[in-house]
């Protein structure tokens, strides 16, 4: 069985109870009967009944109005615009995430809403247009003034921008696209056998053979552990 394929099927495979993964190094055959069953259920993410109820309730509410959502969409795409490879934060659904968080953490509501209004006021005054309708250069001019917060005493506009930037970056990098963009490779069954050799080399590190001797021999991970009377592992 190709471990990589089997892992992929677990992640992408939809509702599939009892998919088998094997616990061995790539390229080695698992021993018969040594497979582990995984239950994959994409409908659930482990919520208690009370937690499900809360999510349902929050999702049924709408905090930002249509104009505010549109402004957020423009703002998030300015904070993380599309690249050749990946879409913008807005493409990754960040405004909807911020809408949810404003309901989940109500202390975000006033600073976010007030900040969005400030963007419009500023833009109306300077350019005679709402922020979302101003030109990209005009929008950036407004942001340039608030995007580098004063370390000691950030203004409320700067605090607003920092909050939106935090939510935008976290929303993006917790999305499917963002995780791929970042290059995070985990959250999947695998067999850890140490830092890759090229990485060790790049960082000038190496494994002490004495230390490695205490570590798991992954080719024998499915062999039942047995010890002698002194606690020495003999299998």
């Amino acid at each position: 069985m190709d471990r990589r394929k089997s892992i992929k099927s677990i992640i992408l495979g939809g509702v599939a109870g009892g998919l088998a993964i094997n616990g061995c190094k790539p390229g080695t055959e698992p021993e018969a009967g040594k497979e582990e069953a995984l239950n994959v259920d994409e409908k659930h993410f482990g919520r208690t009944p009370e937690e499900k109820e809360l999510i349902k309730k929050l999702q049924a509410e709408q905090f930002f109005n249509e104009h505010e959502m549109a402004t957020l969409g423009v703002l998030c795409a300015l904070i993380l615009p599309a690249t050749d490879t990946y879409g913008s934060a807005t493409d990754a659904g960040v405004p909807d995430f911020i809408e949810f968080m404003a309901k989940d953490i109500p202390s975000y509501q006033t600073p976010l809403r007030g900040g969005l209004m400030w963007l419009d006021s500023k833009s109306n005054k300077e350019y005679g247009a709402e922020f979302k309708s101003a030109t990209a250069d005009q929008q950036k001019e407004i942001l340039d003034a608030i995007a580098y917060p004063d370390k000691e005493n950030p203004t409320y506009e700067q605090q607003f921008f920092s909050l939106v930037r935090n939510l935008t970056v976290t929303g993006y990098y917790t999305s499917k696209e963002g995780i791929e963009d970042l290059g995070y490779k985990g959250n999947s069954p695998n067999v850890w056998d140490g830092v890759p050799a090229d990485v060790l080399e790049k960082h000038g590190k190496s494994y002490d053979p004495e230390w490695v001797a205490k570590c798991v021999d992954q080719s024998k991970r499915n062999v039942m552990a047995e010890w002698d009377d002194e606690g020495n592992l003999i299998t």
Partner: protein
Amino acid sequence: MQIKESSTIYDVIIVGSGAGGGMATKVLSEAGLKVAVVEAGPFFDPKNPEQITQLKWPYESPRRGASTTRAFGEYDAAYGGWHIDGEPYTQKNGSKFSWFRSRMLGGRTNHWGRISLRFSERDFKHKDVDGLGENWPIGYEDVRPYYDKVDKLIGVFGSKEGLENEPDGFFLPAPKPRLHELYYIDSAKKSNIPVIPSRMSMVTKKINEDRGVCFYCGQCGRSCQIYADFSAGSCLIFPAQKNGGQIDLFVNAMVREVTTNEEGKATGVVYINKEDRKEYGLKGKIVVLAASACSTARILLNSKSKQHPAGLGNSSEVVGKYLHDSTGGGMTGFIPDLMNRKTYNEDGVGGMHVYTPWWLDNKKLDFARGYHIEIWGGLGMPSYGFGFNPNALNEFLGEKVGGYGNVLREDVKKYYGAMIGFAGRGESIAMESNYCEIDPNKVDEFGIPVLRFNYQWSDHERLQAKHMQETFEELIHNMGGHVLGDIPGKDKDYGLLNPGEIIHEVGTTRMGNDPKTSVVNKYEQLHDADNVFIVDAGPFVSQADKNPTWTILALAWRTSDYIIDQLKKQNI
């Protein structure tokens, strides 16, 4: 009386289903006894598809893992937390004790750190070394056979090191260090600080037919669906049921008190069924309390009768006293050499692959007891909060902080995995003046009087925290790194965390030979009622610079063997 009584008389009623309750359930049911397990929370099985959070992605939740409903993030396994609606607790004299409760089958074993350390002979007799606290009435040789059995039953990885205060066991092999852990090893070497493979209860090699072998997702805090980490449900209670044990599981059942008869012996418990909000009674020949140190003290103090006017087991007035938690301090460093990392899957086991046990001689220091160092870092899975202040570290490179646009993407990648963190977890001195008691003015939503905490750290703990800071700062500098954030000074107790925050609270029903100064004897049996036992961390006389779970498990097994022996001899 309106309490609904069951006609069944159990051999044993076990209150609580965490490490101690789970172990008692397994050993006593497998001895053929009819057991009732009473758990305050719902049923939980880490492999139940509706309860699994393991291997879920942040985007499967609209809040991306934020901690709104669970203290350690919404994918953490614990149902409960520091604050539970309808179950308050109060403080006295400006105390800031934090009390974490998991309301679920398996309790806190579902999400704990799995750091599984044995106490040494010195840990049991530390008063002999420095005159502080009290000695245990038992020593390492009393507990060693049970540590051995726990190792083999549950599985703990580690390495034989021959260190006097870190007794070796029957270890599964350890996982290899991650990259930041290799940096740590080199850094510690420069300061003559030892580092050894961690000792944690994940199955890195097959241990029996019921348990899977770790697949290195790094998510033990979410509880493992293939039972490759230890939790009391998956490793103790479910196997006991499978082995044909007569076990009645009562869930969502909040125990109010232990009932007693004219002779002062326990006759059972009264609990509130959370579903219909009515009181029920259970009858048993023996009651084993394993509700957690503070919950057990609360139950005892609320079990007042003519025979036990100060509360069951409290003729000494020691119940609730000598409450102590591990000390905690921490520091985070930015390591420029770890910038711009190539990414690969280094999730590993849930937690550290290496650690530092206490290494110094307190005779040469200005505080009494030691601490061990836990290490974190690496290329972790993003969750809510990832990327906040995405380029704050620019400050260390003399670059502008803030901005927007695709430069942020570069900054996030540049700093991903470039942080290392240390947590010191140490021993505090058990003191009579640190305690929990019943608050006479408040009840919870079940009408049960709540706990009130009185707890102040002493200079032993404060100066230990100061030492942690100095050590961590040196370790970060050894790596060419920068300390993040301000280093808290004397006015902030050198960053010493509030008591309770390390979730190692122990000592409220301490063990001893003298019924005037202790609550249970060396077999965790109440001095005042010989058919009541306590198998959580309440009986701990001192907590050592170790995490308490492995000792809870060993002592619960030892006590369960004693109960079986005493039943055979018809002594109880």
